[in-house]
């Protein structure tokens, strides 16, 4: 196999800053990474790609010392190592730029770079002069001399914070830098800046693991690309040898049509219409129509504004401009309660945090969005609540001991069914599903897909947000693509191919182009 040849050739040369051999990892019996080999050479940018759930994050976390592999070995400079903690990975020269930036908002830029390993004077006290000088030097090297090292981090943009994290990694003499979706939350000019910083790092001999979905960045930056699919190595190639369609097919890999239930019936009237809706500058100028019986897919990368659009429709972050029309009539939605009363349901992406009250029981969770209906006189009708839950357990095939089991004890798929049951019990006409099958095993996934199709067949209008391209393409009757907080593309079923949607999704837009 080609990838092995590359790895072997490299191993003969200089010692590799990190090399993974036959790494496997499973959680609760499900194999997430299966015998994957991966290596980094000094001074290269190595792109790591794959769909959500392909095993990228697990692989990164193994390198960063957060997880320990079940099988296989990790070598640093040719020596087998075992990272018991992130600290040990740091010591071995492996640093991570986190997506949720780990900084101290009330401390200065300089201190954020050095905290934990501050320069000391002869007396053993912190040498602020040396710290500020070295901080300035580091930022200069990163072409970020414009950053005020005495500024508190709380005032800085995401792009600037990211640069501080990179400087922090350099201050630790990192030889391998893992960047997980570094451009996901960045504005365009920050993306350009980041790319130039990555090139400088490469020149310094730092090996960079670059996780991204955005094709232009991969082709502009990466020397090699490794693609994972369903936890397996789908291929590793030098970037000059691949093109966009090749990469997409390596990632998707299978024929996607047959796995998804076919459309039943026809689209009905327009039920929800957005006209120029915006929330601050997070999402702007969103206009589309959603019809009865339709599944409308909302595609885009993380941070492209999909979830933010859903939250605006659902009244969590009310619209600051534009108009939302329901059945052609303008509606003001200022809270989730109002959205629910208008027949809108939202199955959120973060099940544990937003979807469920995990210590509470199945019946309590289902009742929560339906209290008005389940109340007789002044009191919650306990019998009705229990009956409702028993009905849901039977209807959705929730595997549980009974309505009184706390939901935290259920599997991911069954928890998701409880969220769905809660919202379907409100008799919605518009169902928004944000990452409906994230973190769910294959069987439950298929069941949820069947259910969505059935609901649409009964006249429900469904807006589905998904980061899994095959799911978007397989389930949607129509696909909208978001990028940079705006809708940048629309495809009907026939024209929604992985290549077409993927290209629009991953293209870098300047603000003018997007507008």
């Amino acid at each position, binding site marked *: 196999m080609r990838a092995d040849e590359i790895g072997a050739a490299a191993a003969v040369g200089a010692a590799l800053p990190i090399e993974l051999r036959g790494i496997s990892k499973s959680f609760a019996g499900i194999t997430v990474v299966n015998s994957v080999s991966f290596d980094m050479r000094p001074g290269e940018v190595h792109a790591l790609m794959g769909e959500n759930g392909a095993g990228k994050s697990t692989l990164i976390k193994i390198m960063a010392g957060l997880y320990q592999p079940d099988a296989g070995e990790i070598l640093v400079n040719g020596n087998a190592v075992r990272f018991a903690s992130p600290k040990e990975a740091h010591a071995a020269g492996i640093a991570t730029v986190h997506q949720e930036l780990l900084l101290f908002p009330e401390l200065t830029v300089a201190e954020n770079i050095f905290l934990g390993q501050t320069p000391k004077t002869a007396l053993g006290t912190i040498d602020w002069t040396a710290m500020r000088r070295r901080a300035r030097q580091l930022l200069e090297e990163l072409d970020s001399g414009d950053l005020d090292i005495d500024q508190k981090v709380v005032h800085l943009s995401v792009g600037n914070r990211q640069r501080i994290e990179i400087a922090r990694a350099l201050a630790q003499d990192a030889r391998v830098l893992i960047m997980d979706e570094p451009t996901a939350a960045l504005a365009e000019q920050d993306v350009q800046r980041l790319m130039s910083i990555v090139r400088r790092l490469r020149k310094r001999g730092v090996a960079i693991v670059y996780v991204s979905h955005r094709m232009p960045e991969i082709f502009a930056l990466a020397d090699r690309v490794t693609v994972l699919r369903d936890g397996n190595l789908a291929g590793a190639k030098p970037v000059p040898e691949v093109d966009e369609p090749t990469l997409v097919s390596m990632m998707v890999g299978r024929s996607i049509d047959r796995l998804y239930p076919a459309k039943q019936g026809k689209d009905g009237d327009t039920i929800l219409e957005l006209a120029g809706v915006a929330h601050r500058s997070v999402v702007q100028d969103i206009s589309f129509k959603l019809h009865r019986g339709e599944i409308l897919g909302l595609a885009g990368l993380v941070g492209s504004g999909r979830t933010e659009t859903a939250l605006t429709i659902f009244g969590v972050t009310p619209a600051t401009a534009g108009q939302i029309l329901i059945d052609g009539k303008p509606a003001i939605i200022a*809270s989730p309660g109002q959205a629910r009363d208008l027949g809108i349901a939202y199955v959120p992406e973060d099940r544990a945090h937003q979807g469920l009250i995990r210590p509470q*029981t199945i019946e309590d969770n289902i009742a929560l969005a339906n209290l008005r209906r389940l109340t007789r006189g002044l009191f919650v009708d306990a019998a009705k609540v229990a009956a409702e839950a028993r009905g849901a357990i039977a209807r959705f095939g929730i595997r549980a001991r009974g309505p009184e089991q706390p939901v935290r004890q259920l599997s991911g798929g069954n928890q998701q069914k409880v969220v769905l049951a*809660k919202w379907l019990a409100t008799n919605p006409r518009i169902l928004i599903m944000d990452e409906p099958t994230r973190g769910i095993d294959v069987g439950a996934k298929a069941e949820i897909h069947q259910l969505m199709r059935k609901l649409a067949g009964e006249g429900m209008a469904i807006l589905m947000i998904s980061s899994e391209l095959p799911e978007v393409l397989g389930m949607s009757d129509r696909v909208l693509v978001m990028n940079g907080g705006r809708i940048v593309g629309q495809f009907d079923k026939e024209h929604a191919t992985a290549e077409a949607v993927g290209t629009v999704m991953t293209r870098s837009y300047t603000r003018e182009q997007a507008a």
Partner: protein
Amino acid sequence: MTAAKLFRHETILAALTVIAMIVLASLSDKFFTAENLLNQGRLMAEVGLISLAMTFVIVTGGIDLSVGSILGLTAILLGVFWKNLGLPLPAAILLAMVCGTFAGFVNGLIITRFSVPPLIATLATLALYRGLAEGISEARSVRGYPEWFFFFGQGEVLGVPFQLWVLGIATAIAAVILGLTPFGRATYATGANEVAARFSGIRVNAAKLWIYTASGFCAALAAVIFVSRVTTTRSDMGTGLELDAITAVVLGGTSIFGGRGTIIGTALGLILIQALKNGLALSGVKGDGTIVVIGLVLIGAILVGALFDRNRGG
């Protein structure tokens, strides 16, 4: 929340209370007499009323440290409205209670509108309300209330102290609201996971506003009973009462992290504490020694609760 699980803590607590009663009764023959017990009920009413609202507050994951100060402020206002402004006493009572309730409402506003952590918000209003009480009264006490007013704090109905009836009825109402109504459901949901509650269409901020207002109302009601019982108003009334209330609530099994707790538990916690205080006093422990016991009981109860939480897992 299966019934079996909910009642586990309460059962243990009830057993503990019974044991404490037996031990205390054996230590002093004055303890287990109808007269003493009814008198203890009288003393328990003010903390009791405040603990009921405090249960709701803590179930939402909040805390209200200002209740003692609201009690003091309401008491002072009652005296000032009646004596200095010359209002008829019933009007003075009513107006003072409106002010106390409004103080609670202000707490709620600060917490919901400005997202100030409840701990900090009510710590600040603790100082503010007590300060207002001191400033308005200038350390002068008001006495000489008409005889009929003492009924609230000293009178009896069917041989049972008036305020014990009030506490009993309030406890029943609170238990029904927290246990059986949609509002109670919203309270639990808010404390267990505020985001998920909001995403489920619960009006979280409105619920909190109501609860802090109710907390102010209960403190105001307790103030009227307190003044009537001791026949005078002073600005330091109710100092430290928040501690007694929180102790009772936490001892009653309400999680300090929110999401769990019952009114029955709080009632049992109250009874246990009052029995301990009274029993220890009767067996010769000085009044201030009992404060130490309450502090120890509070820390112990939360410690056990926290360890219990950890074993249950997240």
